[in-house]
């Protein structure tokens, strides 16, 4: 276990993230230009979709049914469990609880990418259809949480349907779903030509990921000051929730027939909290939910935890689960 943790902590991705946090901690004004940061995330998502599509074209669809079902189930469970915990244990307002639930119900694509990179580095090649599962998990969690919120709180300031259209047509979905289709259509010959640029195991992709994680560190570091504001309950929640959601997903994923790599990635998805699709959606539908809570949780607690410790832990659990099978 310690080995795996050490290996992960010494990966360029983790170290770049830590560097970004440190830079912020020493009050450096360093930061990637917003457009570069956005450009990198577009490139990463687009690569993920393309490469996923190419592999999807090879997958037999029998294999994907069960994992897909499990993924959707996770998308339904995590927002509810989150809502109940924050509302009834943490005693937070309905709006705050629903807002946080939307974040944990959805998924962080970067955490997904970090997990893929980790398991591939470990030699535990995941299923080719994992990016497809990512797209399945993006939506339902937000959907469910916002609906809970809409029901519990006074009429939301804007119809959920409208918001869901924004989520469904957001950058992440366009690039992932679009990339999957394009990747599945172009065929291997075309893929070979562009693979060195888009291969998610390649140097360009991983190099770009390092730069991106550096900025993620800066953004997370910028929120460290808010840690006091969220209080002890949410702080603990930000670590326990991913641990519990992720561990369960690692086991269930294994039972659903996923490889060790696949189960680890599924766990990382379940454990992760969205900070791209969810925040604006929640802001619009639940304006009285405090953004400091859900943003600090997602960016400054759960994301670092998953990237630095969670993923290797889930990997170990998946290994054990596979052994037990």
């Amino acid at each position, binding site marked *: 276990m310690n080995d795996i943790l050490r290996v992960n902590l010494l990966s360029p991705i983790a170290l770049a993230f830590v560097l970004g946090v440190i830079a912020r901690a020493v009050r450096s004004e360093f930061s990637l230009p917003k457009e570069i940061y956005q450009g990198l995330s577009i490139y990463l998502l687009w690569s993920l979709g393309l490469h996923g599509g190419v592999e999807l074209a090879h997958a037999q669809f029998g294999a994907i049914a069960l994992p897909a079902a499990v993924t959707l189930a996770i998308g339904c469970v995590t927002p509810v469990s989150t809502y109940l915990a924050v509302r009834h244990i943490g005693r937070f307002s309905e709006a705050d609880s629903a807002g946080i639930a939307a974040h944990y119900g959805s998924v962080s694509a970067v955490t997904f990418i970090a997990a893929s990179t980790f398991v591939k580095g470990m030699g535990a090649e995941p299923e080719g259809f994992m990016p497809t599962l990512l797209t399945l998990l993006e939506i339902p969690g937000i959907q469910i949480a916002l609906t809970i919120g809409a029901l519990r709180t006074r009429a939301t*300031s804007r119809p959920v349907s409208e918001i869901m259209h924004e989520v469904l047509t957001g950058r992440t979905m366009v690039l992932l779903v679009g990339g999957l289709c394009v990747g599945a259509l172009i065929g291997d010959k075309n893929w070979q030509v562009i693979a060195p640029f888009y291969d998610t195991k390649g140097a360009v992709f991983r190099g770009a990921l390092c730069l991106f994680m550096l900025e993620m560190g800066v953004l997370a570091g910028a929120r460290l000051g808010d840690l006091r504001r969220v209080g002890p309950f949410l702080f603990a929640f930000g670590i326990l929730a991913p641990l519990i959601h992720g561990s369960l997903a690692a086991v269930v994923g294994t039972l659903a027939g996923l490889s060790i790599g696949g189960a680890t990635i599924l766990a990382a998805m379940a454990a992760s909290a969205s900070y791209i699709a969810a925040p604006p959606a929640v*802001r619009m539908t639940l304006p009285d939910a*405090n953004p400091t809570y859900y943003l600090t949780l997602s960016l400054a607690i759960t994301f670092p935890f998953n990237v630095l410790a969670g993923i290797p832990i889930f990997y170990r659990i998946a290994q054990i689960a596979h052994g037990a099978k």
Partner: protein
Amino acid sequence: MITTPLKMVVIVAEPVLESRLVNELRALGATGYTILDGRGEGTRHAHATDLPGANIRIEAIVSPAVAGAVMEFVSAHYFVNFSFIAYVVDVAVARSGKYSSS
């Protein structure tokens, strides 16, 4: 030359509100608007963006009546929950016809 006195409503708010504010301005009678991207700080900290402090600044030149309606509306809908300010500036325009939807 002859210019006509009108009001310019300026709103500084979270970027997430852009499309919504634009629609509401139109609905309230603004015939156009100009948006600038900026950053800032105020009396509150909440900001639902991964880029803390990012704001949009919307300015709309409108009739005094529409200006009042816009200020009413935003005071009622945004001041409580959002990073949001609104103010009115006196301006003198050419082609005043351009600014009345009627």
